[in-house]
């Protein structure tokens, strides 16, 4: 009887409930059977990390080419609209792979991520990259065909390119650093 009671208490701790704090939710995720099985696996964790890194290379790599075109740094022949539209399925697939694998990695180490300052900075850069892309979509994409082919990029769109480059360097840099700081 005593054993079953302690089992119940332990089991309750790994269930997410509405009144829990963010820290408790992270702890429950990390302690869940699913999170633990990823963390303690021999093959699954490395495999997910590999998908995360290679998904990053495809999606952000293509995005960087778009940014380089916007800031006028050497992409002379390919207009930004073509990079954006003709390669969309490829970088979106990369983003989906990166996001899903990222969720799984977070699940397995949620409590460590919560305590990691670099992980928080990474998330801030990620949010900024998202807002920056949204701003570009609303402000510059509708008129893109008029300025894109002429090669004269509006100053605002150039700034979007620079911001995107900086944000993604931040996401990658602080993401990689998170793996070191975690104890």
């Amino acid at each position, binding site marked *: 009887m005593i054993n079953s009671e302690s089992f119940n208490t332990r089991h309750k701790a790994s269930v997410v409930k509405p009144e829990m704090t963010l820290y408790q939710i992270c702890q429950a995720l990390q302690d869940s059977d699913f999170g633990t099985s990823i963390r303690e696996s021999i093959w699954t964790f*490395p495999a997910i*990390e*590999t998908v995360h*890194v*290679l998904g*990053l*290379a*495809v999606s*952000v*790599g*293509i*995005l*960087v*080419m778009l940014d*380089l075109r916007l800031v006028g740094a*050497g*992409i*002379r*022949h*390919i207009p930004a609209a*073509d*990079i954006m539209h*003709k*390669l969309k399925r*490829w970088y979106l697939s990369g983003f989906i792979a990166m996001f899903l694998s990222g969720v799984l990695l977070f699940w397995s180490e949620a409590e460590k991520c919560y305590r990691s300052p670099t992980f928080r900075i990474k998330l801030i850069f990620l949010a900024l990259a998202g807002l920056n892309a949204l701003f570009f979509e609303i402000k510059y994409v509708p008129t893109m065909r008029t300025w894109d082919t002429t090669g004269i990029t509006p100053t605002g769109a150039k700034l979007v390119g620079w911001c995107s480059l900086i944000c993604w*360097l931040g996401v*990658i*840099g602080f993401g*990689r*650093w998170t793996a*070191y700081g975690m104890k």
Partner: protein
Amino acid sequence: MIHAFLPFFRWADHTAVAVWIRDSTWIFALLEVFHLFGLTLLLGTLVVVNLRLFGWGLAGHPLSEVASDALPFTIWGMIATMASGALLFVSEAMKCYASAPFFVKMGLLAAALLFTFTFHRYLTKKDAPPSATTKFAACLCITLWFGVGLAGRAIAFF
């Protein structure tokens, strides 16, 4: 055969730079960050060119234009990964000597470099129209470079 390289690995492991990186708590992490920046640029630009070589992606643009736009950035990506990679290597040369994925990675890297700058470059330069040959070349190029990345990741785990 690998035994023949042991003195080189020993030497690398004992260089002043290696000791300096090992003694620092953050230089290794910083080098890994630059390695990843370079990898993103390298693989991202290669994906764009190889999709075009396959006949997908930027199919409306001449292959040679896509390739000449992407190539400088592919090379910058290579410079960043190789410079940071060389420093990462010396700092744990003896660990690499004992790592099978490390030798697989170096083999794939040599093959990938050779293929990219010879036959692959020849196809993109002469605007080869999509054919079985260009499709095969695109697949091989991507497989080799992603193989380098995959084997590289494996060094850390196995």
